[in-house]
């Protein structure tokens, strides 16, 4: 019984189906509750539960890499992001605005009907789909040896389809750039004065502080482990980065600022390091007479692991910056000196 996936193999088909059915119903129920909740806080909490249950579903689908990402990134970090921005919205902005009965009934039908039709059509098409040509799983197995990594998902992400991954790393960096672009500029800024967002700083909780102090190093260790293990088992740079960012978020809510202010230049350097390293590695291969982003078989393993290390640190910096939100307005426009 080394993994959960293994242990479920022993279950009888009937028990598996029953378990899957219950899981599916639970997931659908939490999603329904979250989508129809009038309170944002409730919706977010249900969304986190939804994400954790979904991680279980990914395990059942035989996709442990996705399960880890779902738990760490999907449910964990997205939940933190939602909660963080809830803290910045004023009380009356965190509930659905009231509507008359007629309005809400109209909305329900006008949106509900087409959506049910769309979902039904999708289910029909997907269920009746007949594969004509097999996928590339066989090719992945055949060529995996040339990538040096034994986790097929990592082989796809960092070698066979590394262009996708490069662009995805840039997307995350771009989210930070765009968020930082939201800072009001100079004295000519129109509209009501923007209050610098107050960092949520609850009174110090001794028990929480004790717990977080002990958890933080452990969680960092988990992050490093996830990066290291990614080449051979489920895990990888993104999952690692999400765990590290979650530690930061935890330190933040317990009133301890661990990281330098995200706006500082060293942090910005770290944020761009992942994209820059990825692109530079691709160009270096070109300069060595190979193809853009190519990984020669002899050094592929080393390059993938080291690149994933840089990516993990850099993505963690980006995620931390996203959790912390836009930096405070520049000095000349803020009220405080």
């Amino acid at each position, binding site marked *: 019984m080394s993994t959960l996936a293994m242990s479920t193999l022993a279950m009888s088909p009937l028990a598996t189906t029953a378990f899957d059915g219950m899981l599916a119903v639970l997931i659908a129920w939490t999603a329904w509750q979250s989508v129809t909740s009038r309170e944002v806080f409730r919706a977010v909490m249900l969304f986190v539960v939804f994400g954790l249950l979904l991680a279980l579903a990914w395990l059942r689908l035989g996709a442990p890499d996705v399960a880890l990402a779902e738990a760490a990134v999907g449910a964990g970090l997205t939940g933190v992001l939602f909660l963080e921005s809830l803290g910045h919205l004023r009380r009356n902005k965190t509930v659905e605005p009231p509507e008359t009965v007629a309005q809400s009934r109209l909305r329900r039908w006008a949106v509900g009907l087409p959506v049910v039709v769309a979902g039904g059509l*999708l289910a029909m*098409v*997907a269920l*009746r*789909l*007949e*594969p*004509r*040509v*097999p*996928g*590339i799983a066989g*090719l*992945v197995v055949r*060529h995996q040896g040339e990538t040096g990594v034994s986790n097929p998902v990592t082989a796809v992400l960092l*070698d*066979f*389809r*590394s*262009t*996708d991954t490069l*662009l*995805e790393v*840039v*997307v995350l*960096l*771009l989210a930070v*750039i*765009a968020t*930082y*672009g*939201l*800072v*009001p*500029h*100079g*004295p*000519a*800024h*129109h*509209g009501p004065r923007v209050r610098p967002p107050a960092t949520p700083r609850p009174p110090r909780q001794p028990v929480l502080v004790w717990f977080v102090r002990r958890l933080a190093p452990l969680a960092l260790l988990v992050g490093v482990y996830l990066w290291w293990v990614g080449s051979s088992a489920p895990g990888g740079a993104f999952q690692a980065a999400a765990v590290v960012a979650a530690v930061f978020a935890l330190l933040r809510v317990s009133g301890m600022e661990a990281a330098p202010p995200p706006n500082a*230049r060293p942090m*910005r*350097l770290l*944020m*761009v390091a992942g*994209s*820059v390293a990825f*692109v*530079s590695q*691709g*160009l270096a291969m*070109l300069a060595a007479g*190979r*193809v*853009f*982003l*190519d*990984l020669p078989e002899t050094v592929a393993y080393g390059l993938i692991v080291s690149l994933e290390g840089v990516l993990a640190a850099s993505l963690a910096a980006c995620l931390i910056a996203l959790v912390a939100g836009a930096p405070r307005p*520049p000095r000349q426009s803020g009220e405080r000196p």
Partner: protein
Amino acid sequence: MSLAPLLIPWAAALALALPLLAGAACFVVGGRAAATLALGVAVLSSAAGIVLTAGVEADGVQRLALAGWAPPLGIVWRIDGLAALAVALTGLIFAAVLVHAEKSLDLLRGEGLSEAFRPLALVLLGGLNALYMANDVFNLYVTLELVTLAAVGMVALAGDPAAALRYLLVGVLGALAYMLGCGLLYAAFGTLDLDLLAGRVEPGGTASAALALMIVGVMAKGALFPLHGWLPPAHGSAVAPASALLSGVVAKGGFYVLLRLWLDVYPATGAAPAAAQILGVLGTLAVLWGSLQAIRQTRLKVLLAYSTVAQLGYLMVSLPLIASAAGHASGLAGALHLMASHACAKAAMFLTAGSLIATRGHDRLADLKGAAHDHPMTAFTLGLAGMTLMGLPPSGGFIAKWLLLDASLRSGQWWWAAVILGGSLLAGVYVFLAVSWSMSRPPGEPSDAQPPPLPRRLEFAALALALVAMALGFVSAEHIP
């Protein structure tokens, strides 16, 4: 001499890598060095596009297996004339806009805005170049997301979060539909590569559903009627140089992907003729609705944004022409000419709007009186670019519409010709409105009042683009395969 083996891989890789690296650098450091770097990279990107064009001219379509893996395992970039020209033209437009933005953004809102604009613009440029070359439906999804997020970031720079959020939400939902289509295609046909898909796709429910999802997705992202609602507020409220990039270049990203799917995969589903007529009708509505809305507007930037909705409608009208055997060649050439000339002309017009805002502080049409007297070159640019929108000879827009008319008559679909001509008339009305306001003199104001100063480079940047739009009228259609 064959350029391809040596130069093309470098040019293609640098078209993606340089903007990304420069964008990262501009995120870390600002100031004059960053401004120079950004401009230099835009010019180099355009140069890379020219090298690619020359390579394609000499040696035909090029395929680069990225990371050394051929499809279906890996991803290839396909560099054909369309992609190469798009890279060249996009770099050129970005260069002009960056020249303009360095000055106008700081005039508008003080220091700092151009610092935030630069990295966004550069990453956007890299994403667009990757989009043009991508030959893999999922890689196209990632590049589309990159482009959309950068574009939303640009809209948000101006400080209208509601418009940006609307754009973001439509973009995400479009991306979801598109990704579903990718998943269905892979499950059924075992590949994501466009060329392989073209050979493997069989008519049937799966293929039709997948392509319908993908087309709806790119229509949402590309503001193609009836999913265009987010565009006018977003493009109308963004700072002018951002609008120039969004309306000029980004808006065509969605149609570009649609065209790729249309040319490669869609014929194999057997559903193309019917779908083409539907899209053509939607395009007609876009032309009518966008033009009429543009005529009603009182602000120059919003007028231009609605005109973009109408012009994207023309592109959709070209689809039934491309789908017909007789009109395929000239229909395609016409659509490409229209994309290229509208990109330059619309960017030029938004830049002139930016120049006017920079000196006058607003873009209300009624208060633009006297602009032509104060800034003749800017008003000239507005008129010159407007000629392309109307399709007057000898502009690039004229050639485009001529080719589309030719295609519709050749394929016996005269009703599309009526749409094209009617749309041109309407375009004439709103271009005339925009230009005539600036030409009229303010009554009773002393004419010797000192016109507010307008830096030369603002005027030249816009004029250069308008001239390119005009020059495209002299490029023969055969050069765009």
